[in-house]
């Protein structure tokens, strides 16, 4: 099974709302037509519902199953004790020698990769030292074979260890109750993610102090000012727009900007685009006053290009405050905004000549 098909099998759902599944339609078999029609009429999209707790300004999911649902079906949120996918439970079980042996988590893969890389660098340093010695004697580089070996070492994939090393710390007593590890990790969601799941997909229930919030109450919490250029609403327009195009949108604070766009999701592809949200006002004076700075953008671009992504300036046209106040529903408010993209990258004369 290729990597792509296995990933597709592992993550079959792009959203927590699934299209209806119909039986196969066999053209020369009328009974299958009837069955198909019945199924079509009777079935509705399935929704993986989750409960999000809102406490102290944070949105979090507690139940391990729901955490995995939100991660697997659209890659929403981030494990509070993991890099992105909530893997703390698996990792800790492995460390304590509990439960079954599971596949490696991304954090573990990264550690293994780093070790391989260190090994490679050690070997390279040794070879360079040898080379230098020979060079001082006037011999230039006879190490063709060694170099090939080194190259192989560089390109080698990690080997997955089949044995696990357990390692128990004194404070682990609190974590294990009757031989079972308790899960203390949560999946934390960004405000944009919660709003999208609630407003667009209707697949979450936001609970605060045991009371469920309605869509409008949630909006009141996230956007109390109702001002047209509030950072929440401007970012939400962008988030909703790219999500509705099918991109997986995640925070890009690690790279100094607003959003990252993944094709399908982090396990499938590296993020290709980094979005920098820029408000665009109708008022020229305000626009000129809030214009971006060339130095800042050049710097941001160097960071983004350094991690092999493409910088996209997403201009969001801001409506006037009167238009916002007049608009009724949240949907009407959203459609007052509009979006356009400008791609920015460095241009080097020496590399564009031919």
């Amino acid at each position, binding site marked *: 099974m290729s990597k792509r098909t296995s990933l597709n099998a592992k993550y079959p759902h792009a*959203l927590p709302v699934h299209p209806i599944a119909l039986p196969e339609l066999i053209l020369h078999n009328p009974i299958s037509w009837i069955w198909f029609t019945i199924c079509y009429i009777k079935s509705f999209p399935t929704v993986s519902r989750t409960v999000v707790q809102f406490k102290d300004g944070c949105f979090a999911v507690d139940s391990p199953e729901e955490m995995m649902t939100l991660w697997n079906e659209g890659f929403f949120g981030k494990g509070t004790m993991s890099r992105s996918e909530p893997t703390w439970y698996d990792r800790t079980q492995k460390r304590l020698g509990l439960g079954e042996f599971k596949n490696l988590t991304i954090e573990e893969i990264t550690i293994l990769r780093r070790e391989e890389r260190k090994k490679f660098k050690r070997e390279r340093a040794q070879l360079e030292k040898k080379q230098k010695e020979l*060079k*001082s004697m006037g011999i230039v580089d006879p190490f063709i074979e060694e170099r090939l070996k080194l190259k192989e070492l560089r390109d080698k994939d990690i080997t997955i260890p089949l044995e696990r090393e357990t390692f128990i710390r004194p404070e682990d007593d609190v974590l294990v109750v009757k031989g079972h590890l308790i899960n203390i990790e949560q999946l934390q969601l960004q405000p944009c993610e919660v709003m999208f799941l609630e407003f667009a997909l209707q697949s979450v229930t936001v609970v605060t102090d045991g009371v469920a919030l309605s869509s409008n109450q949630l909006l009141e919490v996230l956007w109390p000012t109702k001002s047209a250029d509030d950072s929440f609403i401007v970012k939400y327009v962008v988030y909703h727009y790219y999500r509705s195009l*099918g991109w997986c949108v995640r925070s890009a604070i690690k790279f100094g900007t607003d959003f990252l766009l993944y094709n399908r999701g982090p396990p499938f592809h590296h993020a*290709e*685009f980094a979005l920098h949200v820029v408000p665009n006002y109708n008022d020229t004076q305000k626009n000129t006053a809030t214009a971006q700075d060339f130095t800042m953008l050049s710097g941001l671009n160097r960071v983004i290009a350094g991690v092999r992504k493409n910088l996209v300036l997403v201009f969001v046209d801001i409506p006037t405050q009167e238009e916002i106040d007049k608009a009724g529903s949240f949907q009407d408010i959203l459609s007052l905004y509009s979006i356009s993209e400008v791609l920015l990258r460095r241009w080097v004369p020496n590399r564009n000549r*031919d």
Partner: protein
Amino acid sequence: MSQELLIETELEDEVQPWEYLNSANLKRGQKDFEKDDTQIQNSTLQDSLDHMYNALSVPRAHTVKQNVKAYYQDGQWRSELKGNFMQTMGVVRNDWCYLTEEEIIYLVERGTVEPIWVKNGQEVTMDLQSVYAMCATDLVRYQVYSNLKRCGYIVQRYTPRECATVRKPWYLPTMFRAVLRRLDILNWFIFPAFTSSWLKSKFLTYSSIFESIRLQFKPQRQAAPTYPLDITFDVWKPDPRFTKKSPPLPDFQIVIVDVSSTRFPTKNQLDDLFKRVEYQGRSQESLSEAQGGAKEKKRLKDGSNCVLFALVDNGVINYMRLSQGNLSSANVIPTKKARGPTQRTTK
């Protein structure tokens, strides 16, 4: 040295490899002059130095016959009609080649022409300094001009062309696909998004779900910018067939910006530029329908209607490429329908 083979690094500003000065194939090198005090390295360094001094020690001169004179008269620079530079520079009128300010400074700097000031019928030979004093009215513009020229490009002042608008031809397959989409009868039973009945819609594919929650933005405002930006130069890649009489569409168009006094353009200014920019291959960008694979990736990354900005910070130049993106045309929705048993987590 071992890194040279192992890790492909890209270098843009390398030291001139003087030892290859006479050989035809100038190669890009690796920055590897960390001093290791070996005899080999020292002699390589010394060799390079010797080659450089040798190359520089040759007297650089031309014969009287080849000497080109450029005259400054009545606020204009004109040169005699000889020399290779004429192929790409200046405008020929009445047996003289008229040059712009940046062209004359560049030619004098290179020693290609001899500048002469004609005043009251008297001819005075000028030095570089006085040419600067007379012509460098826009130093930032000259810096960008000479940088691009020295990189081998053909550069001329921007001249607006008549924009040839290209209309997208109707493709039968796209029409067919559009009809098919309408015929996708099973997708008709979809309730409006953001209502409670939406979840009762008969979604058969993920694209129908995504499509239904897409926002309908109102048409964008198209106000003309209060301060439109100027395109300064048309730039061509080096081409021996280039004729300045009937130049082809430029390869790039460039806007010069002094970063100490200018901020990033507003969206109106950019839109206005994107509308005006004209270069080779521009009309094909929007026609490309490449879906999937490397071609689509390139199309998404390159965008359309690109314009270059030369950012100048007190003599240091950095180029920035801006273009219109169209990420909405990317094909990122999984096409596979969810078939067979699905997990029922609905409560």
